[in-house]
């Protein structure tokens, strides 16, 4: 009898398993097909129209009010929806919603001629009033993170329907590039006024895609803007979803659940490239990882000690071993594609030279310090700590969760306690103004800016200030070059390596373009399937 019972149970178990397996095998509509697809399609003559692109990001956008946005996941959606007066490209600023810019002789008045054929997604017209509304809102409102970039602007005037004039308090060299920063793209004043806190569900810009729906926590859907003033997009729909686990993100791409992954870890790139089931799109980025130094804290107030940190760190080994080769030797504090950047000679890895510099600084026996790291940088920090130890610097590792670390690093000078840490800095508008002026000019010491190395050098201050008031690009570049000479000597932070910008995509996705400020454009993207 017992045997019979067992057999019955086993039969039942087998049935359950069979049912499960057959249910999986049935693969009804809505389940993924073989992701890379396109095997039957012959190479087409040109881009194909239509199709839905499924995009996976590491987190949801926070808010579609772009003037308040600060994160790439929001920027990636906004890139497809919104446009600014100026469009930043890898070749520099290009006309966007403004066709022409004139600067007065004194550099204090900038007059923009606007495109005449543009409508917001909600049907309202794009005009000088709309531009004025957007900039006044940021300048006079509260809680806009990047408002300080517009500090020299004293007035925005709508001269006529299609002419807008910015009046400045002083000549402002990086102004054109700053207007190309995505947070200064133009949103529909009507939509902002009408929807208030619920604007994100009704966001309206002028770009090639417009918002269809946003179910928070699930998906955000953009559709092609059929009334777009320029060349219309090929793709019909963009569906953004999010997933925080990096392993699951890559699995979703490999399984064919999604077509584009907007943040691909460098560690995954070599394997995915080698296996070849999906494509790895690698772009240049200005993003550079720094070993940041609290210049106010002894003994880091001495340049010899900061240079010693550069000599003591084996930066090439971090690129090779920790980044799997997916990074470039740092030749500046900022990566390629940024106006004003000059290539410097990298410090060689030389622990002996580091010891010598420490001895010069009166520390022949080295010293003890602390290295504060986010959990994601732990391996890098361990490697750095080992290298520093070889030069006599004993750095104790402190692992701190990211948002806490930021809070720790960003305290005002008087209460700031960090010694060394790791951050990655990128240029948001492809001008060395950001982050070189913002991070190394002493007027920007926390808390009025983002100089959290608390570096101060009068010569550098003078040069960087001049890059702002000079509007001739050639002269600005020369000023930056001089500033970099001094910065490279003073090493207020040690640039460890220039990162690369990696996207993962299905093989049939074509025409995706990226810029060095990590913007992704899908307006010319299409699916070959």
């Amino acid at each position, binding site marked *: *009898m*017992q045997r019979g*019972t*067992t057999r019955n*149970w086993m039969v039942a*178990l087998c049935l359950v398993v069979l049912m*499960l397996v057959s*249910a*999986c*095998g049935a693969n*009804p509509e*809505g*389940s*993924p097909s*073989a992701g890379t697809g396109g095997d039957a399609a012959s190479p087409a003559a040109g881009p194909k129209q239509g199709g839905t692109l499924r995009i*996976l990001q590491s*987190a*949801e956008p*926070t*808010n579609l009010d772009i003037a*308040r946005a*600060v*994160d790439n996941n929001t920027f990636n959606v906004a890139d497809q929806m919104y446009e600014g007066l100026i469009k930043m490209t890898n070749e520099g600023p290009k006309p966007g919603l403004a066709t022409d810019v004139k600067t007065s002789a004194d550099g204090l008045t900038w007059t923009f001629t606007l495109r005449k054929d543009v409508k917001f997604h909600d049907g309202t017209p794009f005009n000088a009033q709309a531009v004025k509304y957007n900039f006044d809102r940021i300048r006079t409102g*509260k*809680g*806009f*993170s990047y*408002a*300080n970039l517009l500090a020299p602007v004293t007035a925005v005037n709508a001269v006529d329907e299609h002419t807008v004039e910015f009046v400045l308090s002083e000549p402002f060299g990086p102004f054109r590039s700053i207007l190309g920063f995505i947070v200064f793209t133009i949103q529909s004043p009507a939509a902002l006024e009408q929807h208030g*806190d619920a604007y*994100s569900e009704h966001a309206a810009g002028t770009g090639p895609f417009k918002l269809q729906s946003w*179910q*928070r*926590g*699930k998906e955000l859907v953009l559709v092609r803007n059929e009334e777009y003033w320029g060349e219309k997009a090929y793709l019909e729909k963009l569906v953004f*979803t*999010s*997933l*925080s686990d990096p*392993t*699951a993100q890559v*699995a*979703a791409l*490999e*399984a*064919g*659940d*999604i077509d584009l992954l907007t943040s691909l870890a460098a560690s995954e790139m070599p394997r995915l490239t080698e296996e070849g089931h999906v494509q790895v799109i690698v772009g240049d980025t200005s993003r550079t990882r720094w070993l940041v130094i609290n210049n106010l804290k002894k003994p880091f107030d001495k340049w010899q000690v900061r240079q010693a940190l550069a000599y003591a760190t084996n930066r090439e080994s971090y690129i090779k071993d920790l980044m799997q080769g997916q990074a470039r030797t740092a030749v500046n504090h900022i990566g390629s594609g940024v106006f004003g950047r000059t290539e410097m000679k990298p410090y060689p890895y030389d622990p002996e030279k580091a010891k010598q510099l420490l001895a010069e600084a009166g520390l022949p026996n080295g010293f003890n310090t602390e290295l504060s790291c986010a959990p994601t940088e732990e391996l890098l920090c361990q490697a750095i700590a080992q290298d520093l130890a070889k030069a006599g610097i004993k750095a104790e590792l402190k692992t*701190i*969760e990211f*948002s*806490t670390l*930021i*809070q*720790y690093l960003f305290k005002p000078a008087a209460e700031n306690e960090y010694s060394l840490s790791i951050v990655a800095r990128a240029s*948001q508008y492809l001008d060395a103004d950001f982050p070189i002026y913002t991070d190394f000019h002493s007027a920007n010491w926390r*808390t*009025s*800016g*983002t100089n959290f190395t608390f570096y101060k050098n009068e010569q550098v201050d003078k040069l960087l200030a001049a890059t702002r008031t000079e509007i001739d690009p050639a002269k600005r570049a020369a000023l930056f070059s001089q500033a970099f000479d001094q910065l490279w000597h003073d090493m207020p932070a040690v640039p460890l390596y220039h990162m690369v910008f990696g996207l993962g995509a299905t093989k049939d996705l074509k025409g995706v373009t990226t810029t060095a400020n990590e913007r992704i454009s899908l307006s010319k993207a299409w699916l070959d399937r």
Partner: protein
Amino acid sequence: MIRYAAGRLLLAIPTLLAVALLIFAGVRLAPGDPALTIAGEQATQETVEAIRHQLGLDQPFLVQLGRYLMGLARLDLGQSIFSRAPVVHEIAPRLPTTLAVAATSTALASALGLLLGVVAAVHHRRLLDYASMTFGLLGLSVPNFALALLLMLVFAVKLRVLPATGSGSLLHYVMPTITLGLSAAAVVARMTRGSLLEVLRQDYVRTARAKGLPERVVVYRHALKNALMPVVTIVGLQFGQLIGGAVIVESVFGLPGIGKLLIDRILSRDYPVVQGTVLFAAFSFVLVNLVVDLLYGILDPRVRYS
């Protein structure tokens, strides 16, 4: 029984209040600053302060707590810092997903756990017993996230029979259900086995056997029903825990439930949503426990509610 249930629900209020206080203090004691998250690293201190003021985070702790409790008294969980939507509107649309996963995995856990437990008890100290319990041990020791990623690699990436992530079709629930269901099944199996073995040693079972009843009837009609009491408790507790387990599984599989909501908002320090979600999870746990207690009465007529 209705009076008993109402009383239990009233008793839940102090529990929930304690949870609310703990989580309220907890998120604020934890380092990190929502204003800084919103403002971004580029923002000046002035901007951060302005945002902090807008959010009311510049108020003293007790004032913030007072406002929160006043809101709770009106069943108002507050407003999300990011979407500015009421917390209830953030939780409600995600609830079906989490409940669905919790329900399917509890169903899997009960079915599989009972099956394995009974098989093990009936075949005490024989091969099937050891096989079942080995499975039970495995199910308990493999961490959820590891199993989730393993399933994903095998069934989604290699075999391509199931979608790796996302939601929308029933197939999207298969791997999350297995991930959560297996570990819970292991607990249920061990509990069923232990409980059934104990009952099988009782006098009335010996009597039943002595009067020549077939073993099947002895086990299923007489023993199993009495052995089920502790199992029901465990299944109930597991269901409650599955709501917590959803945090990991939903994050890995990208299921838009309250677990993923909780993780996303902890990372961005969206205090009101974190508070609301934890409070809701605690309430579910209390509710499930109540349902379990009520089930006792149905399973065992000797249990009276007073």
